[in-house]
């Protein structure tokens, strides 16, 4: 099992640890609900150093990124970030990712540079996949092992972090980033992004500086009760927003159109891997759709539970489910036949011998 630069710090804090994507990660330090509420109402800090980072640099760096990703990277100015995915050619998703257009200070004349941030579980698969499609003048560098990543999330994140940097955090637009000095550490990539819906920043730092950054953030947040937050609350926070989790809601066999990721699938941008399949699928119309639902029961839906219509016909399967700490009732997402995806449609979730009453709900579940 691999460690992040902070694994020993999590253990020292008494976190409940588990293996996630091959890494020894904190699930929770106190309780999932407590950590969840800390992020929704105040601020929390996550160690997400397990995520993978690749640099793409070269004269045709943009061409490679455009060819392997679904979103339109040509729209990115230096300092912009973008949510995207790597489609395969059979209507599946190799991974979902963030694409950053980097400053060009490390580039030769005429070159561009991007950073791709991928899921920890897919680092090797993505590396192999992107390299296999690299028929461009572009070099790939895997900096995953040398890169630490903290997510500082919540409505108080900007206030807590501001004393640590000269960068004006409150003025940063969502999905932009700057490189700067942060907590006395040079070359920190400060990104106004996150996976919680509560706002905040993601801080990319050289691995050896991760612990110094972690300590500085916890210290700066002390007066407002900042909490370290584990992967348990990371999952409840993202699910309340209807964000997809790779391996649960999307995988090699679900298409971005089915997953509700049409907004990051720019079919008009030119040729890219999977474009032909996706154009065809769009024309034909999708048969199933990733759909949010709320459960009218105390039992909680879980990944893999069948979904039935109100006549008992199986029409889908749950991909994610949880008790929503903010809403106080169980919520979930799953693929359902397209004619059952309309808001309010009654569904039944099959939990072992029980059938739970449910209804299609709008995502995000939570309006923030």
């Amino acid at each position, binding site marked *: 099992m691999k460690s992040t630069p902070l694994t020993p710090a999590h253990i020292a804090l008494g976190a*409940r640890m588990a293996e996630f994507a091959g890494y020894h990660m904190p699930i929770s330090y106190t309780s*999932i609900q407590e950590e969840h509420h800390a992020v929704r109402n105040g601020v929390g800090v996550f160690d997400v150093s397990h995520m993978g980072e690749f640099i793409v640099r070269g004269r045709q760096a943009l061409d490679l990124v455009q060819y392997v990703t679904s979103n339109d990277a040509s729209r990115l100015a230096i300092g912009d970030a973008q949510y995207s995915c790597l489609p395969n050619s059979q209507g599946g998703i190799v991974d979902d990712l963030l694409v950053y257009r980097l400053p060009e200070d490390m580039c030769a004349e005429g070159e561009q540079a991007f950073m791709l941030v991928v899921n920890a579980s897919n680092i090797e698969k993505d590396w192999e996949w992107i390299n296999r499609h690299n028929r461009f003048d572009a070099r790939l560098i895997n900096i995953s092992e040398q890169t630490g990543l903290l997510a500082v999330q919540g409505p108080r994140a900007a206030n807590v972090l501001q004393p640590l940097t000269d960068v004006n955090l409150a003025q940063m637009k969502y999905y932009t980033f700057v490189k700067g000095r942060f907590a006395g550490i040079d070359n920190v990539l400060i990104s106004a992004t996150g996976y919680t819906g509560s706002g905040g920043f993601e801080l990319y730092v050289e691995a050896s500086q991760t612990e110094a950054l972690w300590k500085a953030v916890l210290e700066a947040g002390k007066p407002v009760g900042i909490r370290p937050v584990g992967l348990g609350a990371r999952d409840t926070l993202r699910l309340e927003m209807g964000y997809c989790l790779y391996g649960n809601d999307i995988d090699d066999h679900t298409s971005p159109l089915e997953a509700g990721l049409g907004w990051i699938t720019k079919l008009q941008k030119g040729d890219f891997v999977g474009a032909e399949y996706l154009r065809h699928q769009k024309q034909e119309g999708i048969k199933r759709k990733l759909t949010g639902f709320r459960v009218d029961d105390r039992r909680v839906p879980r990944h893999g539970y069948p979904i039935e219509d109100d006549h008992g016909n199986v029409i889908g399967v749950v991909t994610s489910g949880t008790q929503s700490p903010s809403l106080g009732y169980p919520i979930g997402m799953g693929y359902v036949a397209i004619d059952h995806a309309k808001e309010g449609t009654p569904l039944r979730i099959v939990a072992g011998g029980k059938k739970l009453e449910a209804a299609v709900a709008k995502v995000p579940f939570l309006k923030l």
Partner: protein
Amino acid sequence: MVFPADLKYTSEHEWVRLIEGNIAYVGITDFAQRELDELVYVEVESVGETLGKGEVFGTVEAVKTTSELFMPVSGKILEFNPALDEKQGDDPTLVNRDPYGEGWIVKIECTDLSELDSLMDAAAYEATVA
């Protein structure tokens, strides 16, 4: 973590406490409640039923996980802890706060007391979760 010496334990992380005659309380261990995280619901619909050792007598829902509850020994379910029951106290976190006391889950009448001998004592159970 706590492992009271007067209890018997199963590999499924239930405990049994014999109180008098063949009447016993059953709950889940401190280790189990920690692993599950905060409980949001405890469901027991088997009151009045006689179940065999290892049979499912209920379900606990935590934020992230659903777990079935297994009979540590054969017996009849006499009572579901009213403090946990959604129709009464509806306070599932009692199991987290006091897993061996107020957070007991069911009271049972054991069918065969000799089955208790096959369960683990505190030291043996502690060794399995260490």
